[in-house]
């Protein structure tokens, strides 16, 4: 039996023969700030890196067409439009005022089969309602996140 046909091929030498092709960005995520504090975090994260497919938004409020968001450049976008080509949504909260948005976005993502994750920055106590609103929908929740967690997770996911 050749070395490469058995489990012993897990050696460093055999690693040379692994197929080496460039990896495309894996995700087309939307990062949505639920409150004022989260908006600041989201703007800083957006500015820090040359993100591939990530798009950043801030919740603006209700409108006749549904939940209104603004992108980082201030352009208005309806939630439906923001989610149109998304395959992951990351919600960012620092306190409770965005809890109702979390519910709306969470439900919209669930209906579209979009993976949802939530970052709650700070000690968590100021955002109990936001956490409770995120919990049913967020496949992953980081309730004691800090700003660098947002960057870390998005980077690890090739956003």
């Amino acid at each position, binding site marked *: 039996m050749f070395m490469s046909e*058995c*489990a*012993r091929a*897990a*050696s*460093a030498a*055999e*690693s040379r023969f*692994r197929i080496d092709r460039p*990896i495309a960005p*894996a995700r087309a995520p939307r990062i949505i700030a639920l409150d004022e504090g989260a908006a600041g975090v989201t703007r800083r994260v957006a500015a820090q890196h040359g993100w591939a497919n990530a798009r950043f938004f801030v919740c603006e409020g209700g409108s006749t067409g549904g939940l209104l968001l603004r992108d980082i450049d201030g352009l208005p976008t309806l939630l439906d439009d923001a989610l149109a080509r998304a395959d*992951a949504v990351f919600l960012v909260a620092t306190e409770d005022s965005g809890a109702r948005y979390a519910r709306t976005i969470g439900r919209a993502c669930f209906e579209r089969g979009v*993976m949802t*994750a939530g970052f709650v920055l700070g000690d*968590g106590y100021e955002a*109990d309602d936001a*956490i*409770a609103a995120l*919990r*049913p929908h*967020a*496949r*992953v*929740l*980081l*309730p*004691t996140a800090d700003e*660098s*967690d947002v960057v*870390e*997770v998005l*980077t*690890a*996911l*090739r956003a």
Partner: protein
Amino acid sequence: MLRKEINDLLTLTGPGTPMGALFRQYWMPALLAEELPEDDCPPVRVKLLSERLIAFRDSQGRYGLIDEFCAHRGASLWFGRNEESGLRCPYHGWKYDVTGQCIEVPSEAENSSFCENVKLTAYPLVKIGDVLWTYMGDPATQPELPEFEFALVPPEHTYTSKRLQQCNWLQAFEGGIDSSHVTWLHSGGLKNDPLFKGAKGNEYNQKDTKPFFEVADCDGGLFVGARRNAEEGTYYWRITPWVMPAFTMVPPRGDHPIHGHFWIPIDDQNCWAYSFDYHPIRPLTDAERQAMIDGHGVHSRNIPGTYRPAANMDNDYLMDREAQKRGEDYSGIKGIAIQDASLQESMGPIVDRTKERLVPADSGIIKARQKLRKAVIALRDEGVTPPGVDPAHHRVRSAAVVLPQAEAFLDACRDDVRVRPGVPISSV
């Protein structure tokens, strides 16, 4: 995905490396106590953090962990004679005590003080529970002894084994906080393994194959909560603690003993998996202990006289395609430990994390890497003592509980995830 320089930072643990310096802040398992069973027993070769050492137990029952090689001509002291409170090199008779101090150089004059100036590198070696622990850092900053519950309960309540894993410590450790693979890779074990089967929690595991995760910081590391649907209005939570850098616990099942691991670098391409089971309030039954010895649960069946698993990369881990088809063992590999090892070793000695495609469900791993990186850099650049050194950080437990949907797992389980002597584990 990790950049190459970060992957190197976290995986390389030899002398002079930043991660090696981090490991050298902690007490860690060096070998099992059973490896040095009696005074003046044969010495044991030990390789830790890419340093070759020799462990021995002298005539007075003192343990020593010293440089493997004689200061004279560099012969291995594994060939030495363990006699009269010291280890003597058989080549020219130089003799060392458990502190590495040379106490005899036969070729020197009768009253020569030459040997006083010869001292091998030595590290403390202390027995706590079934494990001999060492601290390889600066003696001036040696921390208090470890206080992990599995090592402190009465001997009849606990069992520890170890096995060689032929890959870098980090990819083995990452399996320990990756709760989502259990539903797939270990699904056979939930039905068949004598140390897992029969728990109510297994039903939740098997019915809900898409867990939700919450990852929360704690003083010593992280708690990773995996949530699955239980009865109407409730969630089944499995809570995995990680104490930095390399201690993880598996959430319990029913009244089975609770278990976990230490992942200790031998060198950059191999590590020891120390696997323990214990019950805080009762002795292990004969059947439980025998099952552990036979390699069930988190333990492995090893080649007699060694700590290398009988199922290993040289025999394709004894893959059984028929068992795979029958669903008896989901991957066709027998045993929880070897199921993990087979896949983690297949990734290569140090997996190239620049090629990964992680998903949000990997957030526990992402967060753990971040905490390790921050701790390594803080230690390297500012001398900050990392989390997990303080013995107070060791007093954690895993838990498996059913909670109302509205409750946050850490708020509801604050007591369940800390050691309370005499109090049962929280388990479903």
